[in-house]
């Protein structure tokens, strides 16, 4: 198990009902982590519509997920 800090933005924050949380997960990649959280919180956006950042940098969905990582899920926003 790894423990990561997850932060949600925009519609994800609304659907998750929180802006961040600590998650203990068996997921090895942000892709697997997102699918796990998607099921848990009922997130509607598909992964293809999002970007993930790890420790302040946009990351690949298949990047390794290390203990203590700060993971941010970012949907695009359009309002103006």
């Amino acid at each position, binding site marked *: 198990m790894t423990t990561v800090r997850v932060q949600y*933005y925009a519609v994800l*924050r609304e659907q998750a009902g929180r802006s961040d949380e600590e998650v203990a997960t068996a997921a090895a990649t942000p892709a697997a982590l997102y699918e796990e959280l998607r099921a848990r919180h009922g997130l509607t*956006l598909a992964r293809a519509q999002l970007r993930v950042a790890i420790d*302040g940098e946009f990351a690949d969905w298949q990047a390794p997920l290390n203990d203590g990582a700060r993971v*941010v899920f*970012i949907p695009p*926003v*359009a*309002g*103006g």
Partner: protein
Amino acid sequence: MGAFAFSDRPLDPDREREALADPACGGYASFEGWVRDFNDGRPVKRLEYEAYAELAIKEGERIVAEARARFGVAHARCVHRVGPLALGELAVWVGVSAAHRGEAFAACRYIIDEVKHRVPIWKKEHYLDGDSGWVNCERCAAAAPEAPQGHGHDHGTRVAATASVERHAPHLARPDYSRQVVLPEVGEAGQRRLSAARVLVVGAGGLGVPVLGYLAGAGIGTLGVVDGDTLDASNLHRQTLYALADVGRPKALLAAERLRSLNPEVDVRAYVERADRAGLASLATGYDVLVDCSDNFTTRFVVNDVAVELGKSAVLASVYQYEGQLQVLRPGGACLRCVWPEATQDGLVGNCAEAGVLGPVPGVLGSLQALEVLKLVLGLTTPAEDAVVLLDLGTLETRRIRAPRAACCAGRACVRVGAATPEPEVELDLAVLDEAVADGYVVVDLRDAREAAADPAPVRHLHIPLAELLAEPSRLDSKQRYLLLCARGQRSLAAARTLRRSGFMGVWSLRGGLAARRVT
């Protein structure tokens, strides 16, 4: 002969009319404004007009040029009297000649309305009872309730007959940049760079208003405003450049008008149009920096792609409820497609109308955009380059995510911009929805249950909320033709594109949604 002129002699409409004659024109329309013997219940015996000629002629010529561009008329001219006029005298004349009568009437109406509203002309009425007053200055009516600067006459209250013209003579202060010039990073040299800069702002809404205001105030030399929308009352909580009395007027023209009064030194150019790729690419060649203040992904990607293609810098921002995203593009650096490789579709995540927003949120993001533009022009470094800045204004947390240029673009032109292909046409324009049913389309309302119940679609239809339809497209018959509709046409457009990719080639979206059907 200018398109707008003042005359201190009686006007000659016949001569003016002859000057507009053209064998290519089948229609001519004119308007004459006369001195009336009554105003506001008081008998008037004569009046005087005075104008701030230098500014008024520029503004008048702009109005005539706008009318010619908007309505496509061949010739147009407006002449206004100044000085003392007797009852019944011709005070203002507008003439338009065009291929057809429709545009001649419309342009004529536009010119007189805008002249009354925008051109600094003051009217002093002399009443039969010996009293007099300065009245009917629509510029004041449209401005803030307090007496506007540079427009120095008492208003609303009649002034005593002894009041002199001098006391009411308007004067404009000169723009003063001293508060920014004193900064070591600006100085006189920086101010010259600002005065030489040309910035094109796409969108004059919640983000655009602070951008435009700050850039005009800073003395940016040329400021272009692109916006195809008219002002809606629901815009005003976040678009503080406008007034309730402006509702229904094109935002680009309104913004231009306000910015010129904020700083007459700025060359403000209004483009009342929706930014598409070809149109924006040709406009953008005349500018150094593009600022995306639009409210939709389609336009945001168009601004990005044009900036990359032409090698311009751009400042992009967007908001969602309490959050915002900011990205600064430099030639050769990361662009929007480095962050969002698949151009996001409108309708899948909310905009201000659907998701709601507090006014200051786009205000903050727009202010940041203005600041980034000034930094770009002044040559200051910014940590916003090659990064996306995320702001959560609920928690006041800021996060800067590094976004290097995509590996596939390194050392070359952005391959993603080059590869971007225009979406196939999937929208239908229909004034009458029943026509679609008569033509064999099945109409599908994609709004959620609450929206649909509050405002039922005025046509026979199926109701399948967007999320349900996307989750289960097999509810549609791939051989049937469908017309999808929603409130504004964004969700239906996204759904139609997604469904087309899944092989439902008969799916169309109602352009502009139900809102577009309500325009009278």
